[in-house]
C-alpha cells in the first residue's frame, strides 16, 4: 500500500512539475473549444445544439495530449526498468500512472468542460451532469489512452500513432457521455447513458492495466 502511495505521489509530482503540467492540456482544450464556433459559425441555435457533444469531444481529444508522456519518458530514461523490478507488479504501476494522469490533467479538464459547454450555448441546468460525466469519462479516457501509450512504446511517430490506436476505442465513452448529456438536454432519461459510461470506465480501469503491463513488458524485452 505504501508503495502505491509513494508511486502515486511521485507521478503527481512529475505531472505537476516543470513543463506546465495540466496547463498545456487546458490550453489545448480552450483552443479546440474556441475553434469550434469559428468553424461552425456563431449562430446560437446551431452552436447550442452541438455544444454538449462538442465539449465532450474536446475533452476526449485533450486527454490524448498527455498520454504520450505516460510511459515514454520512463521507457527512454530507464525508469521503467526500475519500476518493473519493484514491490508493485507492472499492472499496479500502470494503474497508478493512469490514476495520476487523471488527477493531474483529467480533473482540471473535467472542470473546464461544463464551462466550455455553457460558452458554446448549452443550457446551464446541464452543468451538474456534464461535470459528473466529464469526471467519470476522464477516468475512462486515461485508462484506455494508457493502453495506446503503452503499446506504442519504442515506435516511431509516437503521438499520432497513439491517437490512431486510441480514438476508435474512445467511441463508446464518447457516445455514452454525450448521449447522456443530450438526453438531459432533450428532457429524456439520462441515466442509461451515464450508467453505461460508468460501466465502461470501470471495465477500462479493471482490464486496462493488464494490457498496459503486457505492452510494457513487450517493449522492455
Amino acid at each position: 500500500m505504501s508503495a502505491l502511495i509513494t508511486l502515486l505521489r511521485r507521478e503527481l509530482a512529475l505531472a505537476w512539475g516543470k513543463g506546465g503540467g495540466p496547463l498545456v492540456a487546458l490550453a489545448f482544450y480552450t483552443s479546440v473549444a474556441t475553434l469550434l464556433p469559428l468553424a461552425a459559425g456563431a449562430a446560437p441555435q446551431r452552436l447550442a445544439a452541438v455544444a454538449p457533444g462538442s465539449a465532450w469531444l474536446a475533452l476526449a481529444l485533450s486527454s490524448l495530449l498527455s498520454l504520450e508522456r505516460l510511459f515514454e519518458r520512463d521507457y527512454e530514461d530507464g525508469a521503467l526498468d526500475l519500476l518493473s523490478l519493484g514491490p508493485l507488479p507492472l499492472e499496479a504501476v500502470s494503474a497508478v500512472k493512469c490514476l495520476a494522469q487523471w488527477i493531474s490533467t483529467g480533473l482540471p479538464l473535467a472542470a473546464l468542460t461544463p464551462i466550455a459547454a455553457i460558452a458554446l450555448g448549452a443550457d446551464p441546468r446541464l452543468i451538474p451532469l456534464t461535470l459528473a460525466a466529464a469526471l467519470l469519462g476522464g477516468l475512462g479516457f486515461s485508462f484506455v489512452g494508457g493502453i495506446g501509450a503503452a503499446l506504442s512504446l519504442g515506435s516511431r511517430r509516437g503521438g499520432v500513432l497513439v491517437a490512431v490506436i486510441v480514438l476508435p476505442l474512445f467511441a463508446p465513452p464518447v457516445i455514452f457521455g454525450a448521449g447522456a448529456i443530450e438526453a438531459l438536454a432533450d428532457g429524456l432519461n439520462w441515466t442509461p447513458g451515464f450508467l453505461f459510461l460508468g460501466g465502461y470506465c470501470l471495465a477500462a480501469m479493471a482490464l486496462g492495466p493488464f494490457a498496459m503491463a503486457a505492452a510494457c513488458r513487450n517493449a522492455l524485452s
Partner: protein
Amino acid sequence: MITFLANPQRFMDLSRWLAPSLGVLAVVLACVGLGMGLNAPPDYQQGATVLIMFVHVPAAWLGMFAYACLAGSAFFGLVFRHSLADAAARAAAPLGAGFALLALVTGSLWGRPMWGAWWVWDARLTSELILFLFYVGYLALQAAIDDEAKADRAASILALVGAVNLPIVHYSVVWWNSLHQGESIFVKGGPLLSAVYLWPLALMALAYTFGFGALWLTRIRAEVWRRRAGALAVQAAR
C-alpha cells in the same frame, strides 16, 4: 486440430493444396450466387441496386469474421508464442481491412440511390467504419515498430483489446442510433428478406468466406517464406 496445424511443415503441406481449392470453390460459388442474384426479380422499392447487397453484406460479415480470426491468431501468438500464429495474425489484418473498406464503399454506393446521400450515419455503417478504424490502428501499430517480434506482440495485444471492445462499440453505436432514429435503415439478412434473395446471399457469404480462407492461407504461406528468407539472409551475412 490446432496442434496438428501448429507444425509449420504440416501447415505448409496442407495449405499447398487447400488454399487453391478454397479459391476455386470461392470463385464457383460467387458465380453461382451472383447469377442467382442477377436472375432474381428486382426489389420493388430499391430496384436493381439491391444487388449491391450481394457484394456489401457478405463483405461486412467477412470484415467481422476476419477480425475474429485476427483476434484468435493474436491470442495464440501471445499465449503460446508460436510464430505461425503471429504470421496468421499479420496475414489476416490487411484482408479484413480490405473487406471492411469494401463494405463501406459498397454501403455508400447502395445508399446513394436510396436516400440521395453518399453516407448515412446509421448503426451498421458506423459500426463498420469503427471496425475499419480498428484495423487501421492495428496495421499502423505494426508498421511503426521496427523490431518484428515486438511489433507482432504489441499488435496482438491491440487486436485482443479491440476484440473485447468491438461488441461494446457495436452496442454503443446501436444505442446511439436508437436515440435519434427508428430502426436501422438497412434491412438485415434474415426472415425479412424473401427467400429469393436469401439463397444468393448465403452463397455469396460462403464464397467470400472461402475466398478469405484461400487468401489468408496464401498470405500465411508467403509470410512463412518471408521469415525463412529473412533468417537465411541473416545467417548468410555472418
